């Protein structure tokens, strides 16, 4: 056992559904399946639940995106986050402190009215802030960079481990078996249908297999002869010593490629990216990213220059060219469902788990989920979202 809710003993020879990966996607999906009555479910993870990107991300949550597809998917997630503590009987420390997408350039400033108008059209409430309002909201920000922004008041952040642990416990209570230390080597198929998985402890039969393997999801796809244009990428973050509360809301700065918030304990947590993705399996951090983070955060919040960094870590994801997730049944293999290619996965899991479970149990693809199906990548279509803090440079 590695966590409360993890099963003891070995998996059975077969299940109705096998979920590969006990990250937040896999656990949310398993929990939602159990809630809709499918309880003969196993979740298999080679390490401890939440050991991948689910426990290494920036914990931030919003639905104020520029595209209809992202806004609607993540608005469902945001609603779910506000219900989860009560529903899972576990306080996930969801903090609706607000989420600011900061405009630091003229171009972003010019565009923010248009983006907010679109959000209103999608039914997502957001506020346009001018420079003075942004300075009131984040008084420690460098006034040269705090030009304006879009603020979503009911968004914020939650404790990523707590979300994983809450889903894990609730899924286990509902009858799902979650196994730690079971390595899935391959998805087994026969005549275009999934039949189970091959693990280091033998084969497990299942009519439905869900790939929620995070950074390793593409490796798993290849074993089922599913070919999607995904690449691995490493993301890095820092956390400082606790300081007195100075930053109320979550902040993302698309131009600086940075995202950050201050935890209830007072730690500043932030990550940045650089153009071009860092394609590797490694969870080591890099010197140049640490310098990049320090440089950008001190530029944005000059007072942080005097605050000490305690820890620097990395996580890996597998991402699609348009950086949107891939949700739904895999093309060509019936019964093989995907919840992969997540870059904003922590944020999207509550919605994705519910939608994927619904599509598995009813056989109908919910409208909010449909745009994210894998077919778009094969047909070369992409979802255009302009407010992401992630870079597509270096490839197309």
């Amino acid at each position, binding site marked *: 056992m590695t966590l409360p809710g993890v099963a003891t003993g070995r998996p059975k020879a077969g299940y109705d559904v096998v979920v590969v990966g006990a990250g937040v996607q896999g656990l949310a999906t398993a929990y939602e399946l159990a809630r809709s009555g499918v309880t003969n479910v196993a979740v298999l993870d080679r*390490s401890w639940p939440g050991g991948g990107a689910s426990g290494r991300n920036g914990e931030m949550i919003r639905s104020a995106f520029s595209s209809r597809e992202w806004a609607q998917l993540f608005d469902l997630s945001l609603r779910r986050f*506000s219900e989860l*503590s*009560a529903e*899972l*009987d*576990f*306080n*996930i*420390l*969801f*903090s*609706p402190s607000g989420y600011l997408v900061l405009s630091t350039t003229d171009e972003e400033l010019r565009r923010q009215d248009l983006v907010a108008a679109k959000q209103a059209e999608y039914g997502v409430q957001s506020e346009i802030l001018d420079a003075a309002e942004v300075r009131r909201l984040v008084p420690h920000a460098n006034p040269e960079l705090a030009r304006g922004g879009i603020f979503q008041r009911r968004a914020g952040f939650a*404790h990523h481990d*707590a979300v994983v*642990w*809450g889903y894990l416990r609730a899924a286990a209570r509902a009858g799902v078996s979650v196994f730690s230390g079971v390595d899935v080597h391959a998805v087994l198929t026969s005549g275009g249908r999934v039949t189970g998985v091959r693990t280091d402890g033998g084969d497990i039969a299942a009519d439905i297999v869900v790939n929620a393997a995070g950074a390793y999801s593409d490796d798993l796809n290849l074993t089922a002869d599913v070919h999607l244009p995904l690449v691995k990428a490493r993301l890095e973050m820092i956390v400082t*010593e*606790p*300081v*007195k*509360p*100075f930053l109320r809301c979550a902040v993302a700065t698309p131009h600086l490629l940075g995202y950050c918030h201050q935890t*209830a*304990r*007072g730690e500043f947590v932030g990550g940045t990216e650089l153009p071009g993705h860092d394609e590797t*399996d*490694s*969870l*080591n*951090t*890099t*010197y140049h990213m640490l310098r990049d983070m320090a440089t950008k955060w001190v530029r944005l919040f*000059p*007072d*942080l*220059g*005097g*605050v*000490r960094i305690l820890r*620097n870590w990395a996580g890996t994801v597998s991402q699609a060219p348009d950086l949107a997730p891939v949700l739904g049944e895999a093309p060509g293999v019936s019964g093989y469902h995907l919840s992969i290619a997540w870059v904003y996965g922590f944020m999207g899991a509550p919605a994705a788990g519910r939608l994927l479970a619904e599509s598995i149990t009813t056989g109908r693809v919910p409208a909010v989920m449909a745009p994210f199906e894998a077919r778009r990548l094969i047909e070369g279509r992409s979802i255009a979202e302009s407010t992401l803090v992630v870079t597509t440079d270096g490839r197309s």
Partner: protein
Amino acid sequence: MTSAHPDEPVAFTFEGRTLSARPGQSIASAILQSGTPVLTRSFKYRRPRGYTCGYDICGNCPVTINGLPGVTSCTTPVRGGEVVRRERGWPSTDRDLLRATDLMARFVPAGFQFRLFRSRPRLAHLAEKVMGRVAGAGRFPTPQAARAVRTRTEVDAADVLVVGGGISGCAAALGAAGTGASVTLVHPGRLGGRANARDSIVTHDRETAPAAEVAGRLASAVLAHDDIRVVDGFVMSYFETGMIPVVADGLVLECRPKHLVVATGSYDVPGLFPGNDKPGVVLADGVSKLLRVDRVVPWRRAVVMTDGGRGRPLADQLEQAGVEVVAIVVQRGAGASPEPGPGPADRQLDDERVLLGTVRAARGARVLRAVDVEVDGRVRTIRADLLCVALAPRPANDLALQRQYVTAGTTQTVGGGWAGADLSASTPGMSVVGSAAGWTSDDPDRAHAVGAAAGSGSGSTQGK
């Protein structure tokens, strides 16, 4: 502000009072000398915390200096003119009314926040905000202090990087430089490290002398050597591509040495008993440093706790400084057997101070007042204002472990690491010397030889 004469006392301000100190003495030692044992409060329960390790290991002594919070006071020397304040506690660090939270510790164990208010999101959010204020986040730097933290970046081209300037590190640096290699040696503060406060006898160049003396001689030789660059700073990490950045005052040195010599020494290990974090419970090297380097004696009656051979030398140092050692508790069980060698073992029973037993608790409302010792099933309460914890140290293996991670390609596949993975052997491009490698006594000649091998290895690739 700095005094012209090196031994002339200098003054600094501590919470409105003017304190006097010898230049170079640590800020923490000067505060202790003034009769203030509580340096900060703990994070969650607001427990009083004081001087503990002496070497920037424990996090029990951060203070705010000239508006910059989180400055380690046990390793920061007094220069004169500083404005020093403690950071946590309301209304003051000495008397913290929020200390009450400690009494409720059983009701707020790790993870309590996940159970509290789970069905009342609004209340949960409010509680979180309140906890954020109460759970004593430290201060925020003043804008001037924050902007004064600036750095420039420089590439260091030395063949050999020696990390740690104790006896082993200095000897290794001299050994490497002797082969013609260029050497950078990184060490925080005064060269010599923990050896500066040690009385043990060391053999070096066929002569024997006390460790502090040998450390002094090696340090002088290092400082006088043209091919050794000494940097007062610390290594930030071992990164991919072999990058080893060194952080010094206002300078980042980007080192990519051909050979890395790890001479990071050891960490003192704390004892596990209730109250082990109380001001007055001090780790062995922290005690020695205060007595010998900072030359401050803030205690009267001491209990020394040991599991091997370090108790008696500590007791001797304390008595020489005028502290009454009332008991040497030799922990029952692990490692309590007498060690061979010239020095008297801790267990020697002709000394009436020696108790074969177990420390059960450190007592005192705010600071240490007494130590509970269990001997033969009976608990005895011994009055003391110092409990010196002299357990076997563990190798400071962090840097070497990071190098293993990078070699393995990820942090996840490197095992062990609890006590110090087997670092005794040299691997290509890295040697570990001294207590970092688990050596139980100072051996400068051996470290010199390792350094020489590192130097000739790295030099030859350059055709030197």
